[in-house]
């Protein structure tokens, strides 16, 4: 290159400058109010944990089967509604919780297990009935799952109404825990992040060390070869879809407790999952971790730190998500760890 500046480096240079400016601005804001910084950062971390649980299922299904499950957000929301209704009807937990009313641990855990398992079954049924016989026609499969998401969204509106509800966490658990000189929600920090860590660890362990994981890894690379080796690929596919749906369901109950269950959440979590895999690369677990962290932190910081003096730009925070996607696709069209199909 000699002394001439390589023009192809210019976009990357600009990106690096932009990144440095963002970091400097956050650091400046952090020194202004460190308690707020801790809270906002933990918001980002806990959101990332939830996004990861949901998107891990999405990326697993895609990586192995090339199925983009557009109904993933609908499964997520349906799990939330199922857990919410069972908590109400089986345990008599009221949604507008009066002071002193107790919620036992069982009345949260049982709906969690119920919601997760039912969604796993729904996902498996979906794969067996709608997707199994047109394996390889990825567009058609995506359209089928879109059709299903339309039906599910409308049926959920009919059966559960349009009001925002939330699943109650057990009253036995503390409301908040002290962190770095401030207090933060126990459920978000301990339960959600803990669940994400356990799930991430389990998935990693299974994929890395077990025979099933070996088949999955091989299947991601070359499905035809795996099937030629005498492995029942249909069984592996069904298993992967079951796990993916279970993760959507589990995430839905966590999210329904942490945020809310209401119409529109399905589209939001489909978008989140899409962005996570666009950033991280389809089918990559490590990519899902990084994608979730990036999206979670961008969402959290953009919601609070887009205030420059008296100009409040927090209304435009979604634009930063857009910038994140654009930058990622400009640098790596297949995501961080994505590989061509």
């Amino acid at each position, binding site marked *: 290159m000699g002394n001439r500046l390589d023009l192809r480096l210019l976009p990357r240079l600009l990106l690096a400058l932009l990144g440095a400016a963002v970091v400097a601005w956050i650091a400046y804001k952090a020194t202004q109010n460190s308690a707020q910084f801790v809270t906002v950062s933990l918001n980002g971390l806990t959101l990332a944990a939830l996004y990861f649980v949901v998107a891990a299922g999405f990326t697993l299904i895609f990586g192995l089967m090339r199925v983009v499950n557009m109904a993933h957000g609908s499964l997520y929301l349906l799990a939330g509604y199922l857990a919410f209704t069972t908590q109400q009807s089986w345990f008599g937990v009221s949604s507008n919780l009066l002071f002193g009313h107790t919620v036992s641990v069982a009345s949260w855990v049982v709906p969690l297990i119920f919601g997760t398992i039912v969604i796993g079954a729904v996902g498996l049924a979906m794969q067996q009935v709608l997707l199994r016989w047109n394996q390889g026609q990825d567009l058609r499969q995506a359209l*089928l799952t879109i059709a299903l998401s*339309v*039906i599910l969204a409308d049926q959920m509106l*009919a059966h559960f109404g349009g009001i925002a509800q939330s699943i109650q966490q057990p009253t036995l658990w503390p409301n908040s825990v002290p962190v770095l000189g401030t207090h933060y929600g126990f459920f978000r920090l301990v339960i959600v992040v803990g669940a994400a860590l356990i799930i991430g660890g389990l998935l990693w362990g299974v994929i890395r060390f077990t025979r099933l994981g070996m088949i999955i890894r091989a299947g991601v690379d070359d499905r035809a070869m795996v099937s030629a080796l005498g492995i029942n690929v249909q069984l592996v596919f069904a298993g992967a879809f079951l796990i993916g749906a279970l993760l959507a369901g589990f995430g839905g109950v966590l999210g329904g407790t942490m945020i809310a269950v209401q119409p529109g959440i399905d589209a939001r979590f489909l978008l989140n999952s899409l962005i996570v895999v666009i950033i991280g690369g389809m089918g990559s677990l490590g990519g899902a971790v990084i994608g979730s962290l990036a999206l979670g932190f961008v969402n959290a910081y953009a919601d609070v730190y887009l205030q420059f003096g008296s100009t409040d730009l927090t*209304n435009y925070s979604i634009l930063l998500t*857009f910038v994140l996607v654009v930058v990622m696709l400009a640098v790596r069209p297949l995501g961080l760890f994505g590989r061509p199909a």
Partner: protein
Amino acid sequence: MSGAQAPGVVRDTVGVARMRRPRITRARILTWSAVGFLLLVCVLAPVIFTSYWLSQILTKALWLGIAAVSLIFLSRYGGMISLAQVGLYAIAGFTMANLGSAFGGHHLGWNPWVAAGAGVAAATLFGLLFGAIAARSHGIYFLMITLALSVIVFYFFGQATSFSGYGGIRNVATPGLVGNPIIHPEGLYYLSLVASILILMGIRYLARTPFGLALQGIRDDPARMRALGYNVSLHRTLAFGAGAFIAGIAGILSVWYQTQISPGGVDIGQTINVLVIAVIGGLYWLEGAWIGALLFTVLDNYSRTWLPTVGLWLGPERFETLLGVIFLLIVLLSPGGLVGIWNGLRRRLVKVLGH
């Protein structure tokens, strides 16, 4: 497509393609008289149909058809299934509503035609930007990225209340030619009709230009076109810009039709509606867009009266469920949409009638 012999082309003994002289066949006469009849019905529609049908069904079907044809254009000639078309038409609609006179938003009071032109220009520019982002991806990745872009546009207008005027911009001024679309539906009807015909002819023309041919080559074999020296990403990006231009026109017409625009009208549901219309139309046949749109609006209007109530599962309120089931059935049974069914029937009809 590649390799298959196009109709009307014969190969002589040395294998050189040569156009056969168009013959006046019975099928041709049938087709052209059908087109003429259809055109006549379209022109006379304000006399034939009630004004309710004209505005609630036909005009709506025309602009929804334009939105769907922008998707079909990209799918047929570029091999790109884009879910960003509603996001792009939202950009056109909101830009126009902010620049013109309205209640809510910035209402800068521009002339409606100028504001509309600026809206379409904004949609085209964003289309080029979106295209540049998504053009390097293919197939299912492209679908995902464009869906993400469309949903981001929806959330942007939901959040940015200075652009979307707290729950929507109402009383958007229409040009004198359109007037009040509720009292005088004819103006907007004819405008939408002319726009639809021009867009249809424009797409057909574009497909025959060197650009259009290169685009189709890229659709069939990107690697070979790249080897031949074509800039694949640039062609796909420009095509996406053209699709955004068409979607922008649909956005302008939709705002004039409703005289308002709100974030709720350009959500993921509307994105899917336009996709469903395009899929009903067959995804590869331009005219199918308007047929799908007509079916969609008729169902939308009348399902509310005849849908039986079955517990909470089905009822007058459950149009989306009906739509989802129809969508599911079409994708399962006839991936070619209604056009696929029609083509099957026509092939038999032509066989019966002979040439």
